[in-house]
């Protein structure tokens, strides 16, 4: 195209490469840090060339953790994070798809009230109601359990709104055809609506998985025992107050392990991720 042809000089590439360098630099330094020894890092400034201890450090992080986290292996933290992210993502989809279906495909008393009750939750992120939510989790003895880690984060207005938006675009003819064939609302949901929603489910899953994996404040409150620590919280405990006892090489290996799963999800499902992100906000 004419307009781009004229301006496709070196400037955009230079700016983009600078941007890329800024985005990648912190990650690269973490990578180098995870391949050095503790004393290589303490002897500042550390080298910017990777050392030979990468696998050793990853193996130690995964198998033995650090002294500050009382030797809780990072592999166990990864498992906790995985459970949390999967349950939150699957849970949000499982409860919001049916509720959107009910709100869109039926007329019943209090329908609007139900919709608004779900909708206002959009406005109350967990950060603003932490202490009362914590008290309720404690009253229901959910502290230090997977249920406590996930249930309070499972309600999702975003997912419900997205499904509602999509369900409104399903042609009336499909509903009429289903009725003529004698299919009830349950058959229509299973045979037509869910198959049609596959792309939306995939897109939403990517976003919700990342949302769940990256949770910080809630897991910090609701888990106390080392065996329930998620990896993002584990890193915080490994650093402590950042004194010289911090085993930075292990911290950096753990940081990369914590970043890897969501990054892989974004890379492997980039198409759905971009679609989901842009549409979830409409």
């Amino acid at each position, binding site marked *: 195209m004419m307009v781009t042809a004229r301006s496709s000089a070196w400037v955009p590439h230079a700016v*983009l490469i600078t941007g*890329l360098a800024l985005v990648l630099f912190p*990650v690269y330094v973490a990578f180098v840090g995870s391949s050095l020894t503790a004393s290589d890092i303490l002897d500042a400034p550390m080298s910017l060339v990777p050392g030979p201890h990468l696998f050793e450090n990853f193996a130690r992080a995964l198998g033995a953790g650090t002294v500050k986290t009382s030797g809780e292996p990072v592999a166990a933290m990864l498992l906790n994070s995985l459970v949390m992210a999967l349950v939150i993502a699957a849970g949000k989809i499982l409860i919001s798809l049916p509720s959107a279906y009910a709100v869109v495909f039926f007329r019943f008393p209090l329908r609007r009230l139900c919709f608004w009750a779900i909708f206002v939750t959009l406005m109350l992120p967990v950060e603003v109601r932490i202490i009362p939510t914590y*008290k309720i989790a404690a009253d229901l003895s959910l502290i230090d359990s997977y249920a406590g880690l996930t249930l309070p984060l499972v309600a999702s207005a975003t997912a419900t709104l997205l499904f509602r938006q999509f369900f409104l675009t399903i042609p009336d003819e499909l509903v009429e055809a289903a009725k003529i064939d004698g299919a009830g609302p349950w058959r229509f949901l299973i045979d037509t609506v869910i198959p049609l929603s596959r792309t939306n489910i995939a897109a939403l899953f990517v976003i919700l998985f990342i949302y769940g994996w990256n*949770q910080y404040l809630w897991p910090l409150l609701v888990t106390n025992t080392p065996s329930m620590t998620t990896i993002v919280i584990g890193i915080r405990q490994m650093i402590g107050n950042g004194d010289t006892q911090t085993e930075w090489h292990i911290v950096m290996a753990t940081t990369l392990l914590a970043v890897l799963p969501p990054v892989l999800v974004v890379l492997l499902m980039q198409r759905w991720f971009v679609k989901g992100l842009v549409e979830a906000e409409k």
Partner: protein
Amino acid sequence: MERRVVFSGWLFPAFLLMPQLAVTLVFFFWPAAQAILQSMRREDAFGLSTQFVAAENFAAVLGDPFYLASAEVTLLFSVAVAVLALAAGLLLAVMADRVVRGAAVYKTVLLLPYAVAPAIAGVLWLFLFNPSIGIVAVGLRRLGVDWNYLLDADQAMLLVILAAAWKQISYNFLFFLAGLQSIPASLLEASAIDGASPRRRFWTIVFPLLAPTSFFLLVVNIVYAFFDTFGIIHNVTQGGPAKATEILVYKVWYDGMVGLDLGSSAAQSVILMAIVIGLTAIQFRFIERRVHYA
């Protein structure tokens, strides 16, 4: 918008709605109500008796110089993060929109920070800027900058702003790029034929057409800086030095969980809820407006 053809009955939809409504009631409405109730009460030091004090907690919070200082810190932090992340996201999106070769690679790499938890973004930047081991900190000191964000309030603020903005660039980049790509090429070509330079085309055509996207992103970025950056503050500065980076969300957590002042913490929660509701309302007004642009 409503559907014309629907199914009849209420039992089945009620059954479908039940799980979501149950979770919403238990984990949203109940705690929100508790927060409002708690914010109007005061407990004695041993938690033995509670007393109804109406708006006293709010008056105490809003009259507390530490709270007002924290509000000011939050405002400065949020505006700086939003402006920095929006400017960087827009610049990169405009450039990515112009290149053909390598566009996919640029886009993929620029998306990566989105996958990184704010808390982890904090750790990555902490590792660069830690006064004793950080590679950038050492470099700065060699250049004669007296870098120690553990003691210097402005440096601490700068560091958390950089970490928070770094993480948010992906999101802004993605939305600006989508906005740019939805601008009809014919508009730009017509303007180019009329002899407008690329700079002029940007400011007279592209920028006004991006205004709705920018406004939407501004609200999203402010909400992000207000609420999602707890992990960055907690990892990098713990609100210090001397509360210089104590944003409101951090203070709610600190006063409630560490200081155990539940009445004050609840009043702060209620104030934050009011802020979120206000920001969301602004956002929805904007979405209504966007229809006219589209």
